[in-house]
């Protein structure tokens, strides 16, 4: 709440939105408030990125180009290191793939179904960063309309590009011995993790995630994220199957597999105040409802 709408010079133009839709302005304002918790924090992070980029010898406007076009925070930090050592394009493409392959998992829960229109969806997927994912799947924006989601993503994008550009311009005047700005990324994920864990209200989730990441760090440090995400997904699935089995076991006569009993039970297990996710289920056919775990 105490977060001021920082960098008003950026978000200001969209506010007086097209006259025919007074709703658009309120959607934009709502999105700005949704982004209020984390969005402005991208500016110092972007500044850190811009400084790192110019200190490595690239022209300042590459910071703007990286931030606007590649738009993948942590990978952009890596990309600076790759291009300054003239890494082959194949290496760059492979690194982009490995660092960003985690986004595949986001498609399971990112609310793209609320975004209408081909161009809007194209932008929404392009701008589906970790931060955009965190903001749209938790907090007030969890039930936001498609338009509001787009505004939110636009603001997050703008914060990042503005920060990177400012940082790159500042880079020339900040002496080289000032280091450690890249901690802004760590701080960002610290905050996002604390908020997400608090919203989830489920202790085993962060524990499984932490164990998955630590195991991945020990076993295959070069592929930490990919291995961790896979282990975590497997861990969650195992937990889901075990708890579902425990529940069906407690119910008499479910072995016959009538399906009705176990169906309601499973619903209760996951319905911890996340009503918004019922939408895709209603929209899609109900044929997949039968993939319930069978004991």
């Amino acid at each position: 709440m105490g977060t001021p709408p920082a960098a008003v010079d950026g978000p200001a133009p969209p506010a007086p939105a097209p006259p025919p839709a007074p709703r658009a302005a309120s959607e934009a304002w709502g999105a700005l408030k949704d982004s209020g918790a984390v969005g402005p924090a991208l500016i110092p992070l972007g500044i850190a990125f811009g400084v790192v980029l110019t200190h490595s010898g690239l022209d300042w406007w590459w910071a703007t180009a990286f931030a606007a076009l590649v738009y993948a925070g942590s990978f952009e930090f890596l990309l600076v290191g790759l291009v300054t050592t003239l890494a082959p394009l194949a290496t760059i493409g492979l690194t982009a793939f490995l660092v960003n392959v985690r986004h595949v998992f986001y498609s399971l829960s990112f609310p793209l179904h609320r975004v209408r229109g081909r161009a809007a969806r194209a932008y929404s997927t392009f701008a589906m960063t970790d931060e955009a994912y965190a903001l749209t799947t938790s907090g007030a924006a969890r039930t936001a309309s498609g338009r509001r989601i787009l505004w939110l993503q636009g603001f997050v994008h703008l914060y990042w590009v503005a920060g990177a550009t400012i940082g790159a311009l500042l880079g020339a005047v900040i002496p080289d011995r000032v280091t450690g700005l890249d901690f802004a990324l760590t701080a960002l994920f610290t905050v996002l993790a604390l908020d997400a864990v608090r919203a989830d209200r489920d202790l085993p989730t962060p524990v499984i995630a932490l164990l998955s990441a630590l195991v991945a760090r020990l076993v295959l440090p070069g592929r930490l994220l990919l291995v961790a995400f896979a282990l975590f997904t497997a861990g969650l699935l195992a937990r889901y199957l075990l708890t579902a089995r425990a529940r069906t076991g407690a119910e008499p006569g479910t072995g016959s597999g009538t399906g009705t009993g176990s169906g309601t039970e499973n619903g209760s297990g996951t319905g911890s105040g996340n009503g918004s996710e019922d939408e895709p289920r209603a929209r899609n056919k109900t044929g997949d409802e039968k993939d319930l775990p069978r004991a």
Partner: protein
Amino acid sequence: MPETPDTPYLLAAVALSAAVTWGLRALPFAVLTPLRASRTVHYLSTHMPAGVMVMLLVYCLRDLPLADPPRLLAPLSALAVTVGLHLWRRNALLSILAGTAVHVALASTVFAP
């Protein structure tokens, strides 16, 4: 660095990175969207955000110099400040700015490489 990257190379690097990243964000929707009706995937998606952020945090901390305790002080102090402030004030911007400031101050002065 003896050589500096030229513009065509940088443009190609940006274009390639953008294409790969966007592809990874957009294409799975075509394949996985039908799965969203399933209860299992619904369960996964409820708990995924919290887990994902925890793992991204560990990823950021992957290069902590565990073998060199003095150099651990800067990142660990900054982390403690970030967590403490965030639990206390719940203001993302404040937590991130303060944590980063502590890290820059320590890493650039007392624990300068």
